[in-house]
């Protein structure tokens, strides 16, 4: 079961996300001036649609001072097969996104955006991995049906609450927080809405908070795919069998 957000701490939802969900790498996801809005706790997002500006380096996403390694976690894909994220996506341009299928706002928008960007002629080959953070509702079938509404090539992963939280921690993403007010089936989950881009060098150099536009995505993905300094495949890890 997901963590729930106690009623007494509801006001804390208005605090900056890093104050309560600081994790490894979280500092680089925070954007100065990010605004808190609305009542939905999915506003644990990092940026908003009116203020996102991009980086000095020309990327629309947030360039990380210290690249994040491709995380190692194993979940199950929508066919029930174990999916070793690091091994399955190694050396490939990969976009990792944690969300849930009942998300009313950011998840549908991010997935629709990625679909439209990646279906454009000349778009680079990118593996999109969506991790469902709501194991109670996001069964493999539900996740598959949900992703098929956007793009059937998107990879969907599920797991137990503990596995998902471990995966989020490995990726440096704050864990989801369920808002059970009012109690019932239609609870919403506060979660990081950022998309992490892993380059072929198995490092994430750029993270995309919510608010990056289609045109910027197209430009950034082209650039990420052709960025020579990040496209060198790392040497096999110690202990790996070649």
């Amino acid at each position, binding site marked *: 079961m997901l963590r729930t957000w106690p009623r007494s701490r509801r006001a804390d939802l208005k605090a900056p996300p890093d104050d309560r969900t600081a994790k490894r790498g979280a500092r680089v996801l925070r954007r100065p001036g990010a605004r808190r*809005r*609305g*009542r*939905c706790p999915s*506003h644990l997002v990092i940026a*908003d*649609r*009116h203020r996102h500006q991009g980086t000095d380096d020309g990327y629309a996403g947030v360039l990380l001072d210290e690249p994040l390694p491709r995380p190692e976690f194993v979940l199950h894909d929508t066919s029930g097969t174990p999916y070793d994220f690091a091994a399955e996506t190694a050396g490939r341009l990969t976009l990792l996104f944690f969300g849930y299928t009942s998300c*009313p*706002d950011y998840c*549908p*928008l991010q997935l*629709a955006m990625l679909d*439209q960007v990646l279906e454009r002629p000349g778009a680079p080959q990118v593996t999109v991995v969506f991790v469902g953070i709501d194991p109670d509702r996001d069964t493999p079938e539900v996740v598959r049906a949900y992703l098929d*509404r956007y793009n059937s090539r998107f990879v969907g992963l599920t797991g137990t609450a503990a596995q998902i939280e471990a995966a989020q921690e490995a990726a440096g993403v704050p864990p989801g927080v369920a808002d059970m007010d009012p109690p019932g089936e239609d609870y919403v989950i506060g979660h990081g809405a950022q998309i992490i881009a892993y380059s072929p060098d198995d490092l994430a150099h750029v993270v995309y908070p*919510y*608010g990056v*536009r*289609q*045109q910027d995505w*197209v430009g950034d993905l082209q650039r990420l795919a052709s960025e020579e300094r990040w496209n060198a495949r790392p040497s096999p890890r110690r202990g790996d069998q070649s």
Partner: protein
Amino acid sequence: MTWWCASSELSWTWAPRAYPGIWIFMLGVAIFGVVAARRHGGASTRQRALWWAGLLALWVATDWPLGALGAGYLASAHMLQYLLYTFVAAPLLVLSVPERLARQSLSGGLVRPLAILSRPLLAGVLVNVVLVATHAPITVDALRTSQAGSFGMDLLWLAGGLILWLPICGPLPEQRPSYIARGAYLFLAAGVIPMIPGGFLTFADFPLYRLYELAPRVGSISAITDQQLAGALMKVGNLPLVWPVIGAMFWRAAQQERQAESAAPGLAGSPAGVGVAAAGQHQLAAHGERAAEHQWLDEHISETTVDEIFDQSARSDGPVRR
């Protein structure tokens, strides 16, 4: 407090939302209309009906759901709002103003500005400046994110709509141009020029409005499809409203010409009917509608013959009865 429709981060639901500012505004406009009609009088039943219909259109365009959708979720709803303001609410409101009320309330120095705004060239330019300015991505993204900005945009649309229709059906008849001029003006100002920004929206590769691109989705409509729909609405959405009016203008111009011709039936015949034409000339002159006859005479009769006709009619005892 949310008093006017503006962009929102909340996902769209069909649960009604209250916007007290819109209600107060509508109530104020309604009270203003009722008080003005009582004070100055002269409003016919038809004009009263047009007033309330215009107010209803204004309310529908401004309030939930269309107002909320247009302010924060869908570019196509934004465009539909614009069409309702400009091509439904505004003409109904302009048509509802009685001539007497307009003359009394505009007495003094306000008639002159109204006459200036009724000039087709100026009105056409102003209307299209409003059109382009209020649909430019930078303006929409900036204004729609605040309630005051959204309110200002709605007011601009209403003002632009009223200006558009002043030359067509303004309350003061002497300020309206000829039917032909009105038809041509409407064709250019509302039929042709909006096609250009509409084309930009329809054929853009990417969503142009940050606001609508990143807004919570309504149904399964994507941002680019929504924008294309908005562009199509801008290009052709007004045509069902504008073309009948343009047609009516040209039809009335033709009717006016036919009436002028029927007032002098001899003019339509051969030179043998010159005498009858001359007889009808007096009646036409009395009505100040001699242009068509003069044109016919210029085309069919030499200058000498025209002089003879006028001399002959001057010698007669008065208008010839037919």
